[in-house]
């Protein structure tokens, strides 16, 4: 008897593929591999065949056996995966989530920004929010008749400054007094980053609040230059806002730095603001008067300082239009981030 080996192979493949249950697959197995199956029949006829035919049919039967075993085993796994056992579970139902909490977006932003500076060797420091006029103004070269000292621009408290009779403590209007505190306590070299809450009597609206967050940075050493300031803040902006950020250093004025600059950036990450310069931070070389107030000898050190508003950066980065969102603490907002 002669066998069409290739046709049988095709039949095996077709039969296996069309078997849709384990029972059907078992009949396919019996048909080819059973005691009365085709492969046994082929082996059975070998005694009557010629030597050449024997060789051919023997190899054919082996090939068909190997093929059928392989296909049936694969098909069995596929059918088992499809078929439902009585105790099978619906694995697509959501898992029982314990509900991990969320970090407030302001603190996320603070930590992200501080992390960038920490990796560059800066150390986090915290200063008090209740400050003296000396730290908040005088030591920062802000003159006595400066408008920012008015009660229109700074919150004064009913607590007297223990050092200066007749002067009252205030809520710091910026994180810069932290510079003075750090410098009074330590000698350079130093690189610190000072995050925290600041307060100004601004009427609350979509972009103003009487309490907001700032991050201050200060680096003091011998031979720190304006080029270092530019380099470090460029590194920060690229790390934090992405490598495709465009920056410019625009001359500005702060009483406690000289020269002073503001940094504007452009980036596609600020949706709807492409092509617009966005002011992102203020900076400058530490003013000699500030070193004097800190008690450092004249001319010995140079340094730079910078400061940025956390709410502003978070609002730009996440497209948040109203600063009040941060203190409303709507659980739907909290869970978004």
């Amino acid at each position, binding site marked *: 008897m002669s066998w069409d080996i290739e046709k049988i192979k095709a039949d095996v493949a077709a039969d296996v593929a069309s078997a849709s249950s384990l029972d059907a697959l078992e009949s396919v197995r019996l048909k080819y591999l059973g005691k009365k199956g085709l492969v046994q029949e082929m082996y059975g006829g070998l005694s009557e065949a010629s030597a050449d035919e024997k060789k051919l049919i023997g190899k054919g039967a082996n090939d068909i056996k190997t093929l059928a075993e392989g296909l049936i085993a694969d098909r069995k796994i596929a059918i088992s995966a499809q078929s439902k056992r009585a105790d099978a579970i619906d694995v697509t*139902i*959501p898992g*029982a*989530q*314990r*509900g*991990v*909490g*969320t*970090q*407030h977006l*302001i*603190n996320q932003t603070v930590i992200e920004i501080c992390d960038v500076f920490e990796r560059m*060797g800066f*150390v*986090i420091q915290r200063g008090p*929010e*209740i400050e003296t006029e000396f730290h908040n103004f005088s030591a920062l070269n802000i003159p006595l008749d400066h408008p920012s000292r*008015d*009660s229109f621009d700074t919150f*004064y*408290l*009913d607590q007297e400054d223990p050092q200066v009779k007749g002067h*009252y403590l205030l*809520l710091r209007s910026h994180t810069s007094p932290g510079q003075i505190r750090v410098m009074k306590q330590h*000698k*350079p*070299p130093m*690189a610190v980053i000072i995050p925290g809450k600041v307060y100004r*009597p601004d009427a609350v609206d979509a972009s103003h609040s*009487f*309490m907001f967050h700032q991050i201050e940075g200060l680096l003091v*050493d011998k031979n720190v*230059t*304006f*080029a*270092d300031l*530019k*380099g470090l803040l460029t*590194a920060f902006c690229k790390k934090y806002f992405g490598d495709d950020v465009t920056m*410019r*250093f*625009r*001359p*500005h*004025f702060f009483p406690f730095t*000289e*020269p*002073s*600059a503001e940094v504007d950036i452009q980036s596609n990450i600020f949706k709807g603001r492409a092509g617009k310069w966005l002011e992102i931070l203020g900076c400058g*070389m530490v003013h*000699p008067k500030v070193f004097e107030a800190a008690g450092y000898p004249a001319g010995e050190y*140079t340094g730079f300082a910078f400061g940025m508003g956390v709410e502003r950066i978070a609002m730009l980065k996440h497209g948040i239009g109203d600063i009040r969102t*941060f*203190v409303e*603490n*709507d*659980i*739907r907002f*909290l869970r978004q981030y």
Partner: protein
Amino acid sequence: MKLSINWLNQYIDHNLTPEELSHKLTMAGLEVESVSQFGTDTVFEIEVTPNRPDALNMLGLAREVSAITDKDLKQPAVGEYEDVGNFDVSIEDKDACSRYIATVIENVSVKPFPSDKSIFLQAFGAKPISNIVDITNFVLFEFGQPLHAFDLDKLEGGKIIVRRAKKGEKIITLDDVERTLDESILVIADARKPVAIAGIMGGRDTGVTASTKRIVLESAHFDLGVIRRASRKLALTSDACYRFERGVAWKTIEIGSNRATDLILELAGGSVAARKDLVAKELSRARHEVVVSMADIQKLLGAPLELARCEKILKRLGCIVAAGANTLTVVPPHFRNDIKIKEDLIEELARMVGFDNLPMSLPQVSANNISVNQDKENFNRRVAELFIAEGANEIVTYAMVSAPALDRVNFEGEKPIRMQNPMSAEQELMRPTGLANVLAVAASNFNRGARDLKLFEVGKRYLRTGERWTLDVLFSGKKDSDWRRTKKDLVDFYDIKGDVEEVFSRLRVRSLSFEAAAHKAYEPGQCARVLVGGQEAGFIGKISDEVLARFEIKKTAVFFAEIDLEILSGAVAPREKFMELDGFPVIVRDLSLAVNPAAVTFEQMKAMAFDNSKGLLKKIDFVELYTGEKVEKGCKGYVFSLTYQSKERTLTDEEVNALNEEIAAKFIEKFGVKRR
């Protein structure tokens, strides 16, 4: 400050397009905030920083453009006038008004201002009024000197007195508003009444009109603070006020007066009948030299600048410069009081070269003298991270609170720190507790239908003794959102306590304990004092219905904890040595007891068990609380699980059973509990 390009072109040939000019001014520190068209003119709105009052006028801006473009500045020629005749000017408050130049011009003809100049004023938004009034505005915008013209025939007594207003004195200003004054406000007065609010706005009834024949032209110097405070008090500002608040240069008072006199004589005719330059307090400063070396520039900027270029820039800015081999000796112009030290000069040079044209480098943060010991910072950060891991959402609330809000939470404590100038009564106190603020957040979320809350804040309390980092935690509603639970359990005291215990035990605060306490914000019987090594560190418990009702919270139980993190971060135990995982075998025994909670606490029983365990009790777990009826009245069923282990040997069942019985016997003997 506005800049009209057509007007600018009167003083300088700059050859820049408006776009180029805008960019160059911005990058020199005069940020162009907006650009608009006014007829054929382009008008910039420029943000002038407070150190640069000299740039609050067209000539000042032209000078900047001159330095930017290295082109000559064409200044108008200004005549000089000497004091003549007799005019009665007196200054009563010499600190508030240091100088007053009064020029009396007679036989003027009041008519319209020529249109070639008037158009510039209109670009600045100033309405054309008459030649005299428009000249005062023109010189204000040209030189930055505020001026005012009075009709001399309307000044009673024909004199000027600079004095403080009397309380209740009134004046109707040029804008037709009657304003009530007081002693804090400086006025210009005639013999009887105020005729102008000094430096801010003139009076309506003494101003120049079509029939005016004799005028008094005022050019003066007023104290910045006096003008600013009057402006704030009256909620009234003006172009004059804006400039006085920022400071007008001493010499400009005279130049402005003379320039206006020139223009009045030219355009309104008449002649100077009298002039009086009254100096009450000499404020002109001797111009001092500032020396800067090329090495100074290199040291601060990290880049060299060419000496010749520096010299040119400073001259263009109006400085007198003497160049040495490597130094420049500079006398700043009279209107640049902001240039005092060499760093100021370096900034002038840097901004004219362009900050973006200066090089960049990375600083070496080689050594840092600030200790890297960040224990407290890390502790607070870890507290937040662990509460987030426990499923809580972090919030940020205001540091302020109102007195009524503190009353609502029955706050009792030392007088909170009060603000002298709060925005409103809502924010008049610095919060001595976060409870009111956090409850308000819960209430607003409840109102939006979100009742299942786990909130926390790591913030501060503000006490007269100092600021204290504090943890506030609030739990309410359902325990979890597990869909497998058919009965949704509500959070209770042990949920919030468990999270607090777990977080602080992770942070190795070893001596944390709780004792029943009474607190006016909490429900009696469900409140504990949190102790660290016996020191009070806060409270935890169920907020009383009375307090909740005041926040309009009904039918939702709220649990709250407020814990002082300063105390906790100070009680962190050092890391323990690694504990071998495989010791001798442990044996666990349960004890089922009927306990009267009024007679004994779990803490006391635990202590008793350890005291009587011969050092073999490893831990004692609370595994069940039964409150049903199968236990005698007044009692609750407690099940403890006691784990025994020896550090030296394998314990036998017999000895552990005996020990377990001994402990049970002690409970019975000392605390009157019963076996179940």
